[in-house]
């Protein structure tokens, strides 16, 4: 019996989330296969990247011009066709936007429930997932013969990549299905940012209302020195000084970096829920009673305007 991972990729590069999903799959019993669905330009390179992930036994490659758009209707039908070949006990993807839109759709096509955003695999059919943005954990048992899961990427470390000298997994093509033509992709835009992406960054700096506009150059300098991503609290989004793309917390990004530095953030329930899985938390706030200090490993009661430039000078 085998496990099928649906590869995630963009602009010809396999996403690290797929390697993290492979780590989750390794705690299940079975050969791990990867399905790459892509346009003609990148399918071959992507399949090779997938084949070189440690622990992968087989790579399926479906390629056709319309698969470039990765529309849910097309990718779900294609994945369903591979699962119908038989022999699969699990299908996995990370709970990225792509996984969140594809896997429940695939589950409904198959007439089964699924478990989303799994952070721990307990047994072959029971899985732990956070609810209420991580304030609680729920353990769920999935009954279907083929179990569909999405896994939270940052709860699993990325599987290694084999060197060229080691034997990579065999790659086999699967016939592409005709396009469904239900949805048209009109345009695709990527955010051009020199900083790491919030949910993947090793270090994240969060800015709340205690960070004034005048403090931002120093915060940017600190982020440069630490190669950190910058996020904001809900209050900042509500003041309309930052886009909701950078929102940290229950309705925004839920993060678990190695280091989270909360600047001028008091720590509303929704914010704490979204950042509390960070390995180390540092808080800087003028108010010694700010709730953020209750979850911080290190705190400084002080003004961001003074503390941040000092930090920049010391690093």
């Amino acid at each position, binding site marked *: 019996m085998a496990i099928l991972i649906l590869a*995630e990729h963009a602009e010809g590069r396999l*996403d690290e989330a797929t390697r993290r999903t492979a780590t989750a799959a390794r705690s299940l019993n079975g050969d791990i296969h990867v399905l790459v669905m892509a346009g003609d330009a990148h399918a071959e390179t992507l399949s090779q990247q997938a084949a070189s992930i440690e622990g992968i036994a087989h790579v399926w490659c479906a390629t056709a011009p319309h698969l470039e758009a990765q529309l*849910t209707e097309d990718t*779900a039908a294609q994945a369903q066709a591979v699962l119908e070949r038989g022999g699969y006990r699990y299908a996995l993807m990370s709970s*990225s*936007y*792509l996984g*969140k*839109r594809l*896997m*429940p*759709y695939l*589950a*409904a096509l198959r*007439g*089964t*429930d699924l*478990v*989303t*955003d799994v952070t721990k695999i307990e047994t072959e059919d029971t899985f732990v997932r*956070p*609810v*209420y943005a991580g*304030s*609680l954990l*729920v*353990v*769920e*048992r*999935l009954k279907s013969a083929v179990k569909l899961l999405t896994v939270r990427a940052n709860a699993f470390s990325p599987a290694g990549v084999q060197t060229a000298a080691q034997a990579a997994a065999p790659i086999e093509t699967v016939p592409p299905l005709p396009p469904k033509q*239900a*949805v*048209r*992709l009109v345009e*695709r*835009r990527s955010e051009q940012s020199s900083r790491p*992406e919030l949910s993947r960054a090793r270090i994240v700096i969060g800015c709340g209302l205690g960070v004034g506009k005048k403090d931002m150059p120093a915060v940017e300098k600190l982020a440069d020195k*630490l190669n950190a991503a910058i996020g904001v609290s809900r209050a900042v989004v509500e003041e309309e000084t930052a886009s*909701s*793309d950078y929102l940290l917390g229950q*309705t925004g990004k839920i993060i678990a970096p*190695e280091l989270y530095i909360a600047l001028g953030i008091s720590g509303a*329930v*929704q914010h704490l829920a979204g950042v*509390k899985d960070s*390995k*180390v938390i540092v808080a800087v706030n003028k108010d*010694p009673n700010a709730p953020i*200090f209750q*979850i*911080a*490993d*290190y*705190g*400084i009661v002080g003004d961001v305007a003074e*503390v941040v430039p*000092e*930090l920049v*000078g010391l*690093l």
Partner: protein
Amino acid sequence: MKILVPVKRVIDPSFKVRLKPDHSGLDMTYMKMVMNPYDEAALEAALQLKERGMATQVLTVSCGTDDCVETLRTSLALGADETLFIEARYAMTPLVVARLLKAVAVREACDLVLIGRQGMGSDGNQVGPMLAALLGWPYLPFAEALTVEGGDVRVRSKTDRGFETLEAALPALVSVEIGLAAPRYVSMPSLMKAKKRKIVGEAAEALGVDMEMGVAVVQLRSPPERNCGTLLPDAAALVERLRAETGII
């Protein structure tokens, strides 16, 4: 054009949830219930489409226990034309809810479903894509902006790296990001009017869908609590401790 907006009743997200001491369920003492904020954004977007003459009717629906009536009444007070209550005495899995909603969308001849991308709290992100798959309607996920023109719906759809513009012909299903539309306030007169409306439930079983549940909750757990750390005098002390104790910087 008829728009269907499924609305879910959830715990107010500004409340911190806790387990009962015996871990048998959530401690609901002092908890306040509200309409799922994602669905609230979906309802607001539907009402705005109607006000701009793009839609003729906004229909809300909720599947669950008696308490849902309160949420449905709020939807009427906000401006929904009609509301449907699908009554079930137990919690259902997302697939069962999607099957019930499919039966409603087909029976009521809806042209567009606007649904919050997730229930706040259950955080599943499942019912929207499942419903689109069951209906076989185009699925436009994670909408941050939405327009309807000449039988086509166009959304700005959030992705892992930015956004996509997606377009499809109606009927279609759009899953909604919280920022799509800022909900309006309920006015006193419309609330009083909504209070007089009779909301009659129909039994979920009567819709004739498969109610078999494929996933069961085994246990609820509290995550490990973080311990309160150390207060440090200044930036220098912080850098020293981070270097000595964490090795991250």
